[in-house]
């Protein structure tokens, strides 16, 4: 497998600005994110503090971002990044279908929305997971509960239903996407995931539901889940003024590093992270 110089995760202003700078500095990289860049930008009604572009709608700003990418011949891959593993000599990036290698990683996944459910972290890897497509075959003939946020979650739930015996779905964030008829819709709130050695039940406000596994399919990913071993502070990725994290070769930028959550800040951090990564790559110091 060929190794990239860098992988950028996230296509909001931070990730895009990072990608631009990597391109200008002739680095081989992959940019993962959404083809529509950032949902947050797209839906912003009105922006007045983006220097050089007074008084613009989110949609117009998004359109300018897309135009800039196109002019620079930068593509966004919509493959979902599940986990990034620091391997000592490089990073291994796992998506649903593929594994990639890169010397450096720039994390721009945005701010994580969502507190973990009680029991979620304790039972992670023991019946609790974040990637239904990854683990679904393990639940062939078994009972699975899925908490879903949005459309993608519905698609994943439909896939799990092809393999599992029974699938329950709790739409935490509603979606218009069609759910398979044989999936049992749940109502109410999830309270806790219980179980001793492994997940045994999903407890709703209406009572416990016995299951073999629980998947939480959120739209954003908790940074600690995305990169095992990364240092956080108050739930944000901890970085120095060069956007370096505690992991050698791993940089972070944008809302994921903290507040204020502003586009110009994110872009600025994205650029700093890219230039730091370039500097690091150029010293040939990849001995972690």
């Amino acid at each position: 497998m060929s190794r990239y110089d860098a992988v950028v995760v996230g296509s909001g202003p931070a990730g895009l600005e990072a990608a631009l700078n990597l391109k200008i500095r002739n680095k081989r990289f992959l940019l993962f994110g959404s083809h529509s860049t950032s949902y947050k930008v797209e839906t912003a009604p009105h922006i007045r503090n983006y220097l050089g572009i007074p008084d613009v709608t989110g949609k117009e700003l998004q359109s300018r971002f897309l135009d800039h990418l196109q002019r620079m011949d930068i593509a966004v891959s919509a493959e979902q990044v599940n986990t990034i593993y620091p391997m000592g000599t490089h990073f291994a990036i796992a998506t649903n279908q593929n594994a990639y290698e890169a010397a450096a990683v720039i994390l721009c996944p945005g701010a994580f929305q969502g507190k973990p459910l009680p029991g979620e972290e304790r039972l992670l890897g023991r019946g609790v997971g974040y990637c239904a497509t990854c683990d679904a075959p393990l639940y062939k003939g078994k009972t699975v509960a899925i908490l879903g946020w949005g459309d993608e979650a519905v698609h994943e739930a439909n896939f799990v239903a092809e393999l599992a015996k029974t699938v329950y779905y709790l739409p935490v964030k509603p979606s218009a996407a069609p759910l398979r008829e044989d999936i049992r819709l749940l109502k109410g709130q999830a309270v806790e995931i219980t179980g001793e050695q492994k997940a045994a039940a999903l407890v709703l406000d209406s009572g416990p539901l016995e299951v073999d596994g629980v998947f939480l399919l959120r739209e954003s990913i908790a940074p600690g889940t995305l990169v095992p071993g990364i240092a956080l502070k108050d739930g944000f990725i901890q970085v120095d003024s060069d956007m370096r994290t505690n992991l050698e070769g791993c940089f972070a930028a944008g809302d994921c590093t903290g507040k204020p959550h502003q586009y110009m800040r994110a872009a600025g951090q994205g650029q700093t992270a890219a230039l730091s990564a370039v500097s690091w790559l150029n010293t040939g110091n990849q001995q972690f």
Partner: protein
Amino acid sequence: MKNERLIKMTELDTATFQETIKSGVSVVDFWAGWCVPCQIFAPVLEELAGEMESVAFCKVNIEENDELARQFSVTNIPTVIVFKDGEPVSRMVGVKQKDEVQAAIQSHL
């Protein structure tokens, strides 16, 4: 670039499993074809296999051997179980870095 000698691990099934792990130290990697983290993790074990010659490094495809997966309560993959004289003595779930795996095996030698 350091000199890496990667040794392919022996694929085990229900028939050959007991016989292989019953004596000495064995490391068994439970994996499946659709598991991307398993693909990422395999070279780490192959590298260790080249360095720790007294240890048997093996793998079990859980899609073809689900009885073995159930017998050892493998619910998430990759799962690596270290066996000593037929008994499971250590378990790691998920991709780990080489030095962590090496230390876990070393402690049973």
